[in-house]
């Protein structure tokens, strides 16, 4: 574990049991599970922006939820500032929550429609008993609205979410996440529901807050182009495993793993002259029965015998550039 890391994850697994009929459970006896996250290790440095990128079903959202203790891990450990989340009591976990926050994808669903903007942002302050009185509470809420450029704050305090535009809603969600000054924020596809022209604004706003507070930030996305421009480091996930990780410019600019290459090659390029090379075929297999050996071998253009039997380990190929592929080991 390195000195300056805030979160350290070791061999993290999350298997969701699959609901089956009563009879088939009795007769077959075995329990099937969806292996959403299946043994990943990584760390997040202080003030670092880490991207988790991959297709749907790669386990990136489950990883984010595990990190915040919203989901209980099947196996493995998450160490936050030297404390293992597993052993904490509910009370200790609550005080830790002050330091870790999440921003969800859909601001139309993540805000309670029956709460005013003021109540939404004040709630974390109340739960953590931060403000001494109502006046101080309102001041804190106003300050945080100013920070996310929902101005003038007086005009928005008593509005309900349905009276806000999508962009304003996501700003309120950002304000709520940052109001306690967290050390660690997870954002799960925070702009994919928003219009293109306002996406960049919300992202820049979040990045400014992250920088100002010195928070560590996990950005979960399916968009590798955005990940390259936003993140310091990225981890590319596929079927619950990390396939490649390292500095974002290196991983996405010069990918080593065939899956990362395929993912980057599939991104449409805003240039009519650009001619795309061949796209890999097939779709992501079921996480109930992931392929043996390397999970990507069913779609990999370079797959050979060893890939079908032996699972490749994540090894350092270049400085701080890790790849899980037999081509490099």
């Amino acid at each position, binding site marked *: 574990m390195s000195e300056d890391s805030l979160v350290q994850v070791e061999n993290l697994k999350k298997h969701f049991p699959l609901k089956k009929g009563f009879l088939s459970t009795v007769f077959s006896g075995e329990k099937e599970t969806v292996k959403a996250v299946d043994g990943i290790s990584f760390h997040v440095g202080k003030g670092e922006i880490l991207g988790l990128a991959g*297709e*749907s079903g790669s386990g990136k959202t489950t990883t984010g939820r595990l990190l915040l203790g919203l989901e209980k891990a099947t196996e493995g450990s998450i160490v936050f500032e030297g404390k293992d989340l597993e052993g904490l009591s509910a009370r200790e976990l609550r005080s830790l929550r002050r330091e870790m926050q999440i921003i969800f994808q859909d601001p139309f669903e993540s805000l309670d429609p029956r709460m005013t903007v003021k109540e939404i942002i004040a709630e974390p302050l109340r739960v953590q008993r931060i403000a001494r009185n109502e006046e101080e509470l309102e001041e804190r809420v106003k300050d945080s609205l100013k920070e996310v450029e929902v101005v003038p704050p007086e005009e928005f305090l008593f509005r309900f979410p349905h009276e806000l*535009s999508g*962009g304003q809603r996501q700003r309120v969600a950002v304000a709520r996440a940052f109001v306690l000054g967290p050390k660690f924020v997870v954002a799960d596809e925070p702009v994919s529901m928003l*219009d*293109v*022209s*306002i*996406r*960049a*604004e919300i*992202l*820049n706003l979040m990045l400014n807050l992250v920088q100002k507070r010195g928070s560590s930030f996990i950005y979960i996305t*399916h*968009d*590798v*182009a*955005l990940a*390259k*421009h*936003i993140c310091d480091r990225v981890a590319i996930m596929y079927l619950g495993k990390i396939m490649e990780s390292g500095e*974002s*410019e290196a991983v*996405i600019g010069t990918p080593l793993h065939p899956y990362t290459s*395929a*993912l*980057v*090659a*599939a*991104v*449409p*390029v*805003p*240039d*009519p*002259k*650009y001619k*795309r090379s061949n*796209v*890999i*075929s097939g*779709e*992501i297999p079921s996480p109930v029965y992931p392929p043996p050996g390397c999970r990507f071998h069913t779609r990999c253009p370079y797959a050979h015998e060893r890939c079908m039997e032996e699972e490749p380990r994540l090894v350092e190929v270049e400085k701080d550039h890790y790849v899980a592929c037999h081509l490099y080991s």
Partner: protein
Amino acid sequence: MPPVLDVQDLTTNYLTLSGWVRAAEGVSFKVEPGEALGLAGESGCGKTTIALSLIKLLPRGGVIRKGKILFEGLDLVPLKDNEMRKIRWKGIASVFQGAMNAFNPVFKIGDQIVEAIQTHEKDVDKKSAMARAGNLFKMVGLEPERVDNYPHEFSGGMRQRALIAMALATNPKLLIADEPGTALDVIVQAQTLQLMRELKDKLDLSMIMISHDLSIIAETCEKVAIMYAGRVVEYGDADSIFNEPLHPYTQGLIKAFPSVKGPRVRLSSIPGQPPDLLNPPPACRFNPRCPYVMDVCKKIDPPLTMSGKGDHLVACHLYD
């Protein structure tokens, strides 16, 4: 050859309790044979309204208030429902977003394609219709035997392919694709786009591709119309629009899509948000967000005119 589709001054509004929502106003464009036109813009810019107007399947309250839709020379606007039925699918076919839900879950996919064929071509018997469905499957890269599958047996990408096969079942002249692949993963989306490009070349299809993602338009279309708040603000060849965007909105939109190929940059955005179309801003609808706004922009509506660079049209006072 005359254009397959010639839309002139099309104005489609929705009547609501609070008044007319001006979803599309004064929209004109052409689609030449074998050409793909991209309609690009944010949500609420009117691109789907245009698509629904072309096949006259507007939701309740939607009215074409002005303009002409000339499909192979025939104006579709005054046509009655039963006449329109002959144009849809045989003339203009469409693939809408949400491929997941486009098929009826309780019928086999092959049977659904056969139904589409037989509804529009009365003289085709079931056996030859089924054979055609198999051939269509082969054409879109699915195994022909799988016509006997139900929709839930297909993955998202396969359903999208089957949907394209179904749209092409009656050899339409024009295919409208509204956000194809938006709900799919990047790699599957790339596969779908590659398929559409191949089909377009092979069948010499004319196409209208609707998307909010300029990169998708750049990859598939020869012509592009950029829409903002119900109007076309820029229109021209894909090459000239992407290399030399003239309208400040187009410039902002292109910058909002960072390329995966370029070096790491700070993202740029267009401040503000798209207007409320019940009360759009006066004159140029982009003026409240425009970095170059002048007095004239708030008084006179800029017409879509030649910019002096070939067929490249722009609606902006900067080029008066």
